């Protein structure tokens, strides 16, 4: 909506004073600046993507993606790291989704305002503020020091579960909020219990936003680093690209990228770094697109083509 109308020149009283002209040129300047800032973000992002693409795509060989890392010499791959990223992702989701969705449903649909509900909401908000490095240290303290578990995928997953609980709870609550009350009324008025209403009418209706939210969180889990360094560990088993055991250290791709630059001893750091960064970026984009597409498809399927 453009409100800066150009007055007809033939009517001089509408041209306005120098003051008005100054205001209008400030307005134009500001508009240009804001547009510039917005475009610069897109350009910057494009540069990042292009840089990683151009420099990393040459390393995308099966050897690299599925191969084993090497210590001290060039030519290592990131196979086990990619596997660990997925493995930890699945383990985390398996634990977080039931707990977070249950808690979210309870808070949104059942709990009456009171101390318990307030405490749960406060705890969720507080947990959400914990920096991931601190969460990693908590994981270290409780799982490794106290329970004497070893650095492993399961310890990493348990730590990430706690880290992502608040986000998934919020996703659940917002998804439930999108379901109108008339739906709940329709179900209750046929003689369904609240639980039946939630499981058979409300949750199925909220499946679109829930899926989008879960997939986006999955993307974040895939890229998580700080919380995993001291819980899932910094090494991988070096004789196979996959390792399901829950007792061995399970370095993920994101941690590997950091480790390669910070600590490790291989000479082809740029290759491993750029390659890993590209794979990570690619996975993030994939999760992002999948979240959007899945969410939209599921919602459309529910509401029919008229929506």
């Amino acid at each position, binding site marked *: 909506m453009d409100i800066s109308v150009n007055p007809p020149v033939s009517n001089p009283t509408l041209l306005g004073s120098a003051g008005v002209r100054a205001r209008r040129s400030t307005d134009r300047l500001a508009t240009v600046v804001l547009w510039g800032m917005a475009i610069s973000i897109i350009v910057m992002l494009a540069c990042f993507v292009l840089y990683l693409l151009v420099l990393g795509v040459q390393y995308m060989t099966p050897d690299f993606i599925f191969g084993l890392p090497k210590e001290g010499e060039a030519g290592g791959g990131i196979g086990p790291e990619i596997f660990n990223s997925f493995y930890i992702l699945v383990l985390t989701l398996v634990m977080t989704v039931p707990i977070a969705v249950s808690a979210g449903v309870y808070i949104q649909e059942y709990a009456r305002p009171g101390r318990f509900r307030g405490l749960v909401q406060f705890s969720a908000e507080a947990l959400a503020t914990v920096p991931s490095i601190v969460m990693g240290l908590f994981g270290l303290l409780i799982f490794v020091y106290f329970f004497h578990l070893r650095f492993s995928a399961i310890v990493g997953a348990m730590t990430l579960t706690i880290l992502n609980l608040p986000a998934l709870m919020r996703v659940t609550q917002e998804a439930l909020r999108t379901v109108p009350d008339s739906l*709940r009324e329709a179900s209750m008025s*046929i*003689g369904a219990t609240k639980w039946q209403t939630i499981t058979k009418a409300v949750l199925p209706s909220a499946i679109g936003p829930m899926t989008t939210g879960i997939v986006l969180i999955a993307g974040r889990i895939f890229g998580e680093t700080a919380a995993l360094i001291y819980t899932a560990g910094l090494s991988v088993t070096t004789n196979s690209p996959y390792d399901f055991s829950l007792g061995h250290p399970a370095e993920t791709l994101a941690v590997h990228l950091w480790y390669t630059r910070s600590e490790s001893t291989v000479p082809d750091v740029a290759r491993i770094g750029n390659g890993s960064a590209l794979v990570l970026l690619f996975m993030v984009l994939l999760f992002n697109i999948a979240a959007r597409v899945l969410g939209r498809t599921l919602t459309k399927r529910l*509401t029919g083509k008229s929506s």
Partner: protein
Amino acid sequence: MIAADPKTKLKAADVDVFYGSFQAIKNANLAMSEKTVTALIGPSGCGKSTFLRALNRMHDLTPGARVEGMITLDGMNIYAPEADPVVIRHRIGMVFQRPNPFPKTIFENVVYGPKIHGESNKKRLDEIAEKSLRQAALWDEVKDRLTRSALDLSGGQQQRLCIARVLAVEPEVILMDEPASALDPIATSKIEDLIGELKRQYTVVIVTHSMQQAARISEFTAFFHLGEIVEFGTTSDIFTRPKEKRTEDYITGRFG
């Protein structure tokens, strides 16, 4: 047209409904006879819907709402502590003002109730769906697209689907809260015809803001004003020989 001595199916005795400290319904007494249509009329905001929702314990779902007095179904108090609202809502169904089908297929909508109540036999469910949709005068229009989304239907069709959904659980009483007010005249007359058929089997209580509609379809009418039942009687009595001045004023259009 009305049985000589109609049996009372649903009865309200000295019913008050409160929202917090606000009293929405005062001292309501009403006997609704079985297999008849009882219309609740009155100006907007006078409590007709509030009273209706007390009849199937929908106020249980509203925090701060309180129902006092006695409402009995076949003589049994539905607000007794041992009464189960789930059972009550099974026997007393409700159709809402705006159609509210679930975002599921037409079939899934109709069989939602029976499935909730434990029916899982596919053949039985198909039979129930067909029977209910026929009763709701919707079968011919949807029989070839049962697996399509219910939200694709027109407003009038959606409302008939909601009626079918209620019929599928085989209630004894059907409460209707201005079921046609969101529909066009053609859809409205279809719903009215449907109600004429339904009363042969079910007890119907309908809230309506249209006096013409009440006169067309009901045997008994109750006039609500400011939360009270001002007058109750046969529909013809209410509309031709109202006893109370307020009733007469409303009927002749002097207010509301």
